[in-house]
């Protein structure tokens, strides 16, 4: 599903060049549940953003679903994000002016075939993450764990093949974090969705089939 080889990413800060990723190679198969661990600042989020097509590498090759990712067509990248990738962020990133249900439906706004997806489909997802009774609530009226559940429902609304979660439980206590993790495991097992989770929590990592450890811009074997 994901095939990264020799991915490098560097930033220019004034005259100095900072190499954040120094040649990351990583393969993830379809249906895998994999976690990425590593010390703070080693480049995990940078790697995740590249996998999620939000950022582009300085060099290296990246194949998604057996097709080399081309960065020349921005609209095509948007389309892939919309159709194939579900994002779950540490800060939830829900839109504060929209209700939970409207937040879940948001990605549908950017599809031509949005009519295929009924309101019932979005409600069903909210039910699945246990938030059906809060459909009309604004994010500010929800707890962190509840917001993250809504964010997961949003990530699922376009039936993605891949879910990218950057420290999804980073702002939650162990109990709630465990429940969120259960959700990911369920999605992986029942729907075959590939899940990549960045985490600092060894307890979370232990529940994954595979753990990749990053250090200093590379994945250590």
């Amino acid at each position, binding site marked *: 599903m994901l095939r990264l080889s020799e991915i490098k990413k560097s930033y220019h800060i004034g005259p100095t060049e900072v190499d954040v990723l120094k040649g990351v190679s990583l393969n993830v198969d379809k249906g895998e549940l994999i976690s990425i661990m590593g010390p703070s600042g080693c480049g995990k989020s940078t790697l995740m*953003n590249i996998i*999620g097509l*939000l*950022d582009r590498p300085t060099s290296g090759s990246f194949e998604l679903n057996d097709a080399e990712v081309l960065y020349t067509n*921005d*609209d095509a990248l*948007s*389309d892939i*994000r*919309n*159709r194939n990738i579900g*994002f779950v962020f540490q800060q939830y*990133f829900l*839109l504060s*002016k929209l209700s939970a249900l409207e937040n879940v439906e*948001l*990605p549908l*706004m*950017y*599809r031509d075939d*949005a009519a295929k997806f009924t309101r019932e489909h979005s409600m069903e997802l909210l039910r699945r993450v246990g938030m059906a009774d809060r459909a009309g609530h604004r994010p500010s009226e929800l707890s962190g764990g509840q917001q993250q559940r809504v964010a997961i429902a*949003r990530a699922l609304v*376009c039936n993605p093949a891949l879910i990218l979660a950057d420290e999804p439980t980073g702002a939650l206590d162990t109990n709630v974090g465990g429940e969120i993790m259960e959700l990911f495991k369920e999605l992986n097992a029942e729907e075959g969705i590939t899940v990549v989770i960045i985490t600092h929590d060894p307890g979370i990592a232990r529940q994954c089939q595979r753990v990749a450890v990053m250090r200093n811009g590379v994945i250590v074997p």
Partner: protein
Amino acid sequence: MIIGANIKEAVRSLLSSKQRTVLALIGIVIGIGSVIAMVSIGKIVQEESLRQFKEMGTDVLTIESQFGGGEPSTGGRITRSAPKSKIKLADVLAIPTECPGISAVAPSVRGNGEASYGGKKLQNAGMIGVTESFLGINKLKISQGRFISDLDAHNQFCTIGSMVATEMRTLGSGDVIGKKLRVGQSLYTVVGVTAEVLEGGMRRFQPNETIYVHITSALRSSREAEISEIIARVSTGVTNTVARDQVLAYFKSKTKKSSVRVTSPEEIIAQMEKQMQMFTLLLGAIGSISLIVGGVGVMNVMLVSVSERRREIGIRRALGAKRGDIRGQFLIESIILSLIGGVLGILFGVGASVIISHFAKWHFVLSSGAILLGVGVSNAVGIFFGYYPARQASLLDPIVALKSD
């Protein structure tokens, strides 16, 4: 991309920063308002001149006495020291026979002195001394009784305008015919009432608020009284210019000292159009300046909105929004903002033209073209000044937008 959802969100976002929205709207409202006022006043004046042509006909000349005896075309600057020379009534009545280009004349004398009935002052009444021909030349109609006749020279009779009659009735006159009213030192018996006439028009007097007496009565009433204005109908088949030259030559031959000014309807309409041009220029200048100011206001609001919502833009991009979607979202927001300004501006502009036409005594007409223009212009402002901020938003890098706060 669903337009409906975009509109809903644009309204939501504009409502969440009401103050800023209102401030941005002021410029647009003034700008669109001025443009609307400009266009609708242009339309009103056009209709007005058409109406006056129809009402009075184009074959009417106005002859006025002029002080100082200068050339008729100098516009007659009045100086107190200049000796006055009165036009003689007999000379005026001879015009149709002396000038073949003129078929009829109606001289008039402005009277002075307060008008009263039963000892109570009549608020809206001015006296004019006229001849029988005055009625027809001014296209007035009689609603009751009769008009002053040429045989009334030695009678203290008057015919009154509809408003004067109304006022007399409120003072308790009952049927006004046969009642006596006072102007200055003289008493006049009412013999008729003229039908109500719409305001405005080319007449230099208020037909509804006038007390018409025979011209000799008016000339007799005071030593200062003189023929101030003569309305002359041009004979068929003669151009206004030819008739005018005949009149000027005639007066020149009569006396060296007196001179007259002759105005044709074309000149009056030209004057009106000049007046309108001034309005148009002024409103056009105000309009275009305010539209630019308003547009910059819209741009400013949108730039602030974009920079405040960078995080939101990043989220939307992550969820699959294309650059065009983001651009569309912000464009719709600025168009809606401008359209709200446009609608308010239309109200403002229509209001302004109602007021202006009220004071200029023009007939107000609502032009649908002006409204369409208002909607169109505000739309254009929204697109033109909203495009830059919307483009800025769409060019934001997803990851940069997402990381910003």
